[in-house]
């Protein structure tokens, strides 16, 4: 059931939300757009293609304390940290919402990752459908769409004098201001997007696993962590303890398979030393292991952030079409 929200109603609604809950929304920071907690509605910007970093940073923060060890009278007691208020992410694109849904696979599978699961349960998603595509977008090829409403609680679509709100879940319904009038207007058609050859890419990666293509592609790769950190579906993490003065915490932080020490074990043995093997790990995990492990789509939502941020332009669309071409040719 679609509702109509005027621009004024939207501002008043967001103003109410940011007082009751943690409201994460796109904020302009120099030339970047980042999801940040906002205290005033004026900080929010709606003029952006997609944010620089994905909203995954709220569910799997760059750094979080999994639990802290507190010594009360000699007995150490492990207390896991919790977020203080319910949260709302406003203005996330449908591709990012799908990214979060994909990450639910590994994190909510038994035994559920409670820090992630708690944030997921206490956060509502208000999506904003895309009115025009960016050159690096290819979400329609990856099972999402500029107006895909399947992974958000409410999807807003902009029309000339306001927004149409598609209410998807009960959580969304409870969030909406009450006095909203129904909207009979038809939803505008989504922008057209390029298509990327993705059919049976999983098979192609399996076939070409030991093909020299990976070493050639890795020649120009710098093995920084940009692609993994900007990506909405990369979720590898590292864990270590931190103690300063009295409190001691077990901290979890982002990590990436591109860093040299990612698979090195104490004593120095490292099964994955060549550049090609490290770069292949990223594509193999997204295009082969993840779909086979979670019987879902590929762990890529077509947001194009890795294409936009890679210092040496390793373009996942190009990699996929290379793999398809090589598979037909039977290897390079």
């Amino acid at each position, binding site marked *: 059931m679609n509702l109509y929200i005027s621009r004024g109603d939207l501002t008043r609604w967001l103003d109410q939300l940011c007082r009751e809950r943690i409201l994460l929304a796109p904020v302009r920071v120099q030339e970047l757009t980042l999801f940040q907690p906002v205290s005033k509605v004026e900080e929010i910007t709606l003029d952006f293609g997609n944010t620089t970093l994905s909203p995954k940073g709220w569910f799997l923060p760059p750094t979080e304390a*999994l*639990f802290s*060890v507190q010594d009360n009278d000699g007995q*150490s007691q*492990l207390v*896991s940290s919790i977020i203080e208020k319910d949260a709302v992410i406003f203005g996330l694109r449908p591709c990012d919402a799908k990214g979060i849904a994909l990450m639910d696979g*590994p*994190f909510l*599978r038994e*035994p*559920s*990752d*409670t*820090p992630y*699961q708690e944030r997921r349960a206490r956060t509502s998603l208000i999506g904003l459908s895309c009115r025009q595509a960016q050159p690096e977008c290819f979400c329609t090829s990856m099972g999402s769409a500029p107006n895909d409403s399947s992974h958000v609680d409410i999807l807003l679509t902009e029309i000339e004098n306001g927004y149409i709100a598609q209410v998807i879940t009960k959580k969304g319904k409870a969030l909406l201001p009450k006095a909203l009038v129904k909207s009979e207007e038809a939803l505008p058609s989504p922008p057209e997007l390029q298509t990327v050859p993705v059919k049976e890419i999983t098979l192609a990666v*399996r076939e070409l*696993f030991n093909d020299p293509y990976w070493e050639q592609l890795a020649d120009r790769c710098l093995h920084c962590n940009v692609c993994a950190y900007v990506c909405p579906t990369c*979720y*590898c*993490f*590292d*864990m*270590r*303890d931190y*103690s300063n003065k009295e409190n*001691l915490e*077990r901290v*979890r932080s982002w*990590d990436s*398979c591109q860093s040299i020490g*990612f*698979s*090195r*074990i*104490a*004593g120095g*043995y490292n*099964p*994955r030393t060549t550049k090609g*093997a490290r770069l292949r790990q990223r594509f*193999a*995990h997204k295009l*082969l*292991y993840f779909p*086979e*492990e979670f019987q879902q789509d590929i762990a890529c939502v077509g947001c194009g952030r890795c294409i936009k941020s890679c210092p040496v332009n390793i373009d996942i669309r190009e990699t996929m079409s290379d793999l398809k071409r090589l598979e037909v040719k039977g290897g390079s």
Partner: protein
Amino acid sequence: MVLKNPFIPYLATLKSAVDLTPDVKLLKVELKNPTERASFNYKPGQFALLSAFGEGEAPFGMVSLPQHGDGLEFAVRRIGTVTRALHELEPGDVLGVRGPFGNYFPLENYVGKNMVIIGGGIGMAPLRPVINQILEQRDDYQDLLIINGARTPQDLVFAPEFKTWMKTPRTKLELTVDRGNEQWGGRVALVPDVVKKLAPSPDNAITITCGPPIMIHYTLAVLRELGFKDNQIVTTLEAKMKCGLGKCARCNVGDKYVCQDGPVFTLAQISQFLEQP
């Protein structure tokens, strides 16, 4: 109902820390909470993630058997920051235990077989519970050949138990070192060469090999030459581990998670792996 945070370890106290070699300690650990202690059931080959609070966590195979009482035993070689912190613990100190994780050596499938147990250095640790389990049901198994190698004589792990192993019927213990010293009268050779010389027969036999990756690599090659089929060759894979829950994708070799699909694999499985370890 509030789900339990899977990253929070069971709290445990260190009961005893015995030096097995200059850089390996046998830590005996007991979970504080009685219900947790009772529910912590495990089999040879499984591992736990030990927390040295203030440093971090690292995976160690249990070297004790559950039926031998509540204490969990781990052989910890001092090789990094977490292991150093574990070595600095004194009896009575608190540490964390998470697990048990991973699959195990399916000893019940090996009943009636000749067992060849090959351990290198600290690799002997996960094999000790296997040997002790076989000794407890000695008649269920045919001949038992144990080949235990180490860099130097003082690096041989579980030396005090060699006598009991050797005294058991139809059991042979072959020791070897890379570099001997004056007191050492035994064999000085690399483990793969010893296996080649002893040439155990592959008929109705199962081999289990653990040790440094380089030793496993060459030993498995020798076993194949001796006629052992890939499904008769069992080994464990070492990998970097953080969560132990199949989430952080740290320990995956190809599409397999060593923390959940392993650490115990047969060579038949490993040869099908996309990515060779």
